[in-house]
């Protein structure tokens, strides 16, 4: 059926308003950033001396140097950090998933694990860093342990909710069709739970990164956290800030662009919204 003139103009107007609002929002964001940079520049120029707070352009130059690999190259250090964090997430998934299964199915196990999970969520990050320091000293495994411990509660909780939501009729149907336990696990339970494992990882992502960096600051010989501490000890503010901003930008981009997309794909088979 042909669209009426009224419908068309309405749609145009709605889109126009939406575009205007979007444009205004982008503008506000840009102004916000500009204001932040200007404020920074003014403070470093007039309030604190430029040793204490280097000007934004100096920090930008140092960041560029780091990317180019002048003194402490970007990619090897980031790679070192990523590998540790990634290993930590795998550990969190490996431990959190069976935990989540137990917690989702049984009142007893939920109570058993409630205290450790709650405590794990409320201890200060420094705890994980120092704990890894005691157990592993200066080693690759320190950050892995810290990241694993901090993500594990999130994975376990999400998996426990996912397990509760598994469609029992699907399972019953599989049993009725004579599928073996193994097949049911592989084809019904695991795909249902996989997105929740991922959601647990994604929710704890920035937290895990921060704890991983903290652990590296305490006890690592490579990685972003190590670079941050090194520049602190050398009293090089601009380099320190450059590493920090690169780290944050990297983390935000990774979380927003990469992880959200992967999660959306994993949840694609569901027709309703993600947790």
């Amino acid at each position, binding site marked *: 059926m042909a669209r009426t003139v009224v419908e068309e103009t309405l749609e145009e107007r709605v889109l126009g308003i939406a575009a205007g609002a979007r444009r*205004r929002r982008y503008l506000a964001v840009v102004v916000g950033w500009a204001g932040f940079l200007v404020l920074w520049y003014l403070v470093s120029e007039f309030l*604190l001396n430029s040793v204490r707070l280097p000007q934004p352009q100096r920090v930008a130059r140092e960041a560029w140097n780091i990317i180019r690999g002048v003194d402490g190259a970007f990619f090897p250090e980031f790679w070192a950090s990523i590998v540790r964090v990634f290993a930590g997430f795998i550990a969190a998934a490996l431990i959190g998933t069976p935990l989540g299964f137990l917690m989702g199915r049984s009142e007893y196990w939920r109570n058993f694990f409630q205290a450790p999970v709650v405590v794990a969520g*409320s201890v200060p990050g420094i705890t994980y860093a120092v704990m890894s320091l005691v157990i592993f000293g200066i080693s690759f495994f320190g950050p892995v342990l810290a990241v694993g411990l901090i993500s594990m509660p999130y994975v376990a909780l999400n998996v426990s909710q996912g397990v509760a939501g598994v469609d029992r009729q699907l399972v019953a149907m599989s049993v009725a069709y004579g599928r073996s336990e193994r097949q049911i696990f592989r084809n019904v339970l695991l795909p249902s739970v996989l997105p929740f494992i991922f959601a647990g990882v994604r929710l704890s992502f920035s937290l895990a990164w921060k704890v991983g*960096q903290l652990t590296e600051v305490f006890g690592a010989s490579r990685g972003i956290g190590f670079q941050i501490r090194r520049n602190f000890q050398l009293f090089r503010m601009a380099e320190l800030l450059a590493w920090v901003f690169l780290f944050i930008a990297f983390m935000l981009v990774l979380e927003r662009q990469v992880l959200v997309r992967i999660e959306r794909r994993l949840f694609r088979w569901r027709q309703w919204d993600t947790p």
Partner: protein
Amino acid sequence: MAARWTSAIAFLLGWQLVTLVSTRVPSPVRVLEFLWLEVSGGSHGGVVRGEFIEHFLGTLGRYTIGLVIGFTAGLLIGVLIGSSSLARALASDTILVLLALPAIVWAFLTTMWFGIDVKAPIVTVALSAFPFVVVNVAQGVRSITPDLRRMTAAFGVERWKQFRYLTLGAISGYVFAGLRFAVIIGWNGVLLWEWFAGQNGVGFRTRYWYDANRYQGFVGWVVAFIVFIVLLDRFVFARLERRAFRWRDRATDVEIIEETTMGL
């Protein structure tokens, strides 16, 4: 109930097992022995005197002042951001960056700015806690639907009553949630600062024993600061938060666990 006890016992057993395997990890018993000496002022190995209260009070002082500053600033900015969409658009990326900054960076920055001065840990605590308070309070302000506002206006409720019963009531739960985050993160911040640059206090003392390679001392102090913050969070702030949120429907078990694990 039985599950909780079993859980605690399992943890202690696990710790003891790790002790058997590792040369670095001290056993629970040695840690308790250490803590006893430290708290009662006894002497460790006949050489070092135990010191507990002076360090704890020192840390508490800096922590509390920083917390008050960070929380108040966060409250004000949070209300501003929650009420005005312009303010939100302007500030949201900055707040995001502040949220993503690890507390350790604040500890380093404030040390460079203020040196070994009491201002440094206070500012560290304030800056670490600030963004979390802002985000929670802003969420609380935004949760007041325009319908509720119109309804109160339609019923002719005076402005101060509107503020007291509608605004304050609606945001109080979120304010307490933000306060809980601030408490945990601020504690983290002050400990970090004291570890790297302090001359006394909990963080300093923890490092003192770590540098001396006396891991029972190191772990003992870690246990002490964990116990402190967990008790503070669970028995003081979680209760306050639940009371402030009691107008909401009761959360399920899992949701309560989730809320309490949002820490850090």
